């Protein structure tokens, strides 16, 4: 798993051509102007989903992990708290669903804030729970994010 600010993105290009395409998309697109929806970067192999949504309480958010896609998550506006853990050490609450590319999990993890301009890369072993409120100084209510899905 990677946590960093977008200006440091070039260091991570060599994680793979899909990750490089995802990071370059985030660097070179006017994301503030981009409407919610799906944007293709490289067909089904690399595509972006732009979302604006209300943050939730940490206990209402769901732990998940993917198998077919790596998530590159970027905050455009707002601030969120994310949680992360090694997926193999978590308890499965719903078995992997191939169509949704998702396993639902529960357990304990670490937490960090993500602010506008920061990104996180979650690989298949990185269980994550995102989109929850931060506490200080003043919690944002909504967030605009881009999640770039990169085929493994």
């Amino acid at each position, binding site marked *: *798993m*990677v*946590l*960093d*600010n977008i200006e*440091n993105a070039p*260091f*991570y290009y*060599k*994680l793979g051509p899909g990750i490089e395409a995802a990071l370059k998309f985030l660097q070179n697109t006017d994301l503030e102007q981009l409407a919610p929806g799906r944007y293709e970067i490289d067909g089904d192999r690399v595509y972006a989903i732009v979302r604006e949504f209300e943050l939730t309480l940490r206990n209402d958010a769901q732990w998940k992990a993917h198998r077919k896609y790596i998530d590159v998550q970027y905050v455009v506006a707002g601030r969120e708290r994310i949680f*992360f853990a*090694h997926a193999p050490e978590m308890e499965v609450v719903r078995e992997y669903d191939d169509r949704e590319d998702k396993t639902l999990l529960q357990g304990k993890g*670490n*937490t*960090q*804030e993500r*602010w506008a301009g920061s990104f996180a890369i979650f*690989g298949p*072993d*990185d269980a994550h729970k995102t989109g929850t409120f*931060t*506490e200080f100084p003043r919690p944002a209510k909504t967030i605009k994010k881009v999640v770039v899905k990169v085929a493994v």
Partner: protein
Amino acid sequence: MIIDHIRNSVRYDGLDERLGKALAFLRDTDWSGKAPGRCEIDGDDVYAHVQQFKLLPQSEGKWEAHRRYIDVHYAVEGKERVAYAPVDSLEVYRAYDEAADYMLLRGAGSTNVYTGENTVVVNPGTFVVFRPEDAHMIGIAVDTPKPVTKVVVKVRVS
């Protein structure tokens, strides 16, 4: 900043040749019973220190950052709490010392060591990579201060 289990470390080998050597060294060494001291990997470009020390109470954590070297921290025995914040989100507290490759910073970042929010518990088998942009607070106890064994690999910035 990278945090992952050592079993996934191969994914990061290609990011930087010296970082790849550091990760391979961590993967390929049997760490059980390894005595504290310096390990040679590739001269001054990549070397490691095995450390055993008692973790600090949370109130004694200090933000530090380096310029010439990337730090790879690997937990062998015992749990350690660390924290990360971008260098530019903090204030310089002790100016960069070239010889020691070390600067101290202060500020909250987004971290609260008292509640543990925004800090990361590093369990055995986990490694963390701090690049020069990544200020870090290390060696903090998870609950009561206990001894840990860890390896810090210094990787000269290419």
